[in-house]
């Protein structure tokens, strides 16, 4: 057990193992994404209320779910880096931010596009969209803080503190926004609830959610490998790797 943790802290080992994971995970992810997208786009029946525009759900919901989960992955890595001073956790945390921000961006844009045919307007201050917007701000805040520090080690620690503060705050923010929305909006506009979704629509959705998780992992690992190379650029193993 401990030797595994010890290995996790070793950059060359982590670089090698992530490389071999990516070799099979990346093609698998791309295939799953393609299958899920085609299934959702072409092989499911349209929603009886929203028609074909609901097909956006197969990218909107997975990206939103994974973007939120990504923040917790980032906070978890940040906590490890603060508590056990593990440098590779620092690398993981730093690499989460751009991936999470991109997924949040996708969730927002697809939500807006979905809104146009459904509500007749590009942007509605709906509880979920507002929450996603705040999540995007949180991600961008982490990135901005990281970039503001010259000392990247301090940057990692500061971002770890910020993400932990965010972890405590996200449920509060989400609940507040939900409550705020119920206060100000009539309950006439509603998404199809997940509970009432038809199985024929559910399976491709689950496949897409799984694929987005895998995609998050792939992008995270690729960013981590880049960051490891950058941080370890003076060490012997990187020199040997690059020279070969």
């Amino acid at each position: 057990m401990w030797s595994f943790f010890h290995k996790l802290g070793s950059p060359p080992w982590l670089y090698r193992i992530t490389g071999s994971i990516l070799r099979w995970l990346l093609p698998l992810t791309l295939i799953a994404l393609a299958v899920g997208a085609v299934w959702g786009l072409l092989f499911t029946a349209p929603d009886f209320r929203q028609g074909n525009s609901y097909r956006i759900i197969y990218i909107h919901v997975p990206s939103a779910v994974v973007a939120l989960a990504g923040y917790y992955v980032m906070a978890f890595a940040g906590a490890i880096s603060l508590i056990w001073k593990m440098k590779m956790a620092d690398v993981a945390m730093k690499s989460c931010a751009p991936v999470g921000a991109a997924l949040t961006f996708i969730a927002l844009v697809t939500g807006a596009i979905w809104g146009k045919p459904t509500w007749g307007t590009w942007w509605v201050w709906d509880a979920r969209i507002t929450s996603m917007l705040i999540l995007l701000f949180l991600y961008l805040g982490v990135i901005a803080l990281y970039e503001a520090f010259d000392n990247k080690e301090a940057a990692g620690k500061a971002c770890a503190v910020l993400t932990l503060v965010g972890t405590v705050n996200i449920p509060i923010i989400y609940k507040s926004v939900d409550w705020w929305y119920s206060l100000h909006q009539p309950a006439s506009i509603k998404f199809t609830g997940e509970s009432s979704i038809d199985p024929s629509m559910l399976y491709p959705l689950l496949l897409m959610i799984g694929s987005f998780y895998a995609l998050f992992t792939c992008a995270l690992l690729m960013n981590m490998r880049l960051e490891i190379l950058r941080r370890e650029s003076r060490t012997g193993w990187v020199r040997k790797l690059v020279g070969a």
Partner: protein
Amino acid sequence: MSVAGHSGAAVAAGSLLQARGLGLERGGRELFCDLSFAVRPGHLLQVEGANGAGKTSLLRILAGLSRYGFSGQVERAAPLLYLGHHSAVKAMLSPRENLAWHIAGEGSYRADEIDTALAQVGLYGYEDVPSHTLSAGQHRRVNLARLYLSRSPLWLLDEPFTAIDRDGVAALEALLVRHAQQGGAVVLTSHQRLSVSYPVARLDLRAGLKEGLSEGAHT
């Protein structure tokens, strides 16, 4: 008042500070590596080196202000007093208020003790003027007045002679020697050599030279 009565008993056993295998790298350049030494009661240790040699960094590591980015370990066995580059003097407060705050974490002092300490650094008559009317050297003196009140056995002083005139330097040197004689220890950085009749250990960061540290080094 002096440090004698307080520090003597507290630090009788062992070393006040122990550094093991300290190494620091900045911007790909190794400033020092595998630096091991112990600071014991009675030690007067001067850290030397050119600008950028890592003197301040070393002192901040020893004080515990730098907690990552270096290799090795520091064990602190006694309360310490650290005076850095900044004087921590608030322009809007008087020297008396400043000093009273500087030592507030260490103990409760009477007003006359604080005034005596200020008089000892040559600020008699300046106790109540706003500090922004004082010079940089006088700010430094407010800071140094703390040494007359401190009960911490271990002093870490970063360039304590900066902006101090010749008389001030002599008085400070005498104070440091007295502190060491009474069972305290001082680690300081300075470009100029101390002119004291007391054994001064030297740690040259550039050369990794350790002179007079033999009985304290490597355990």
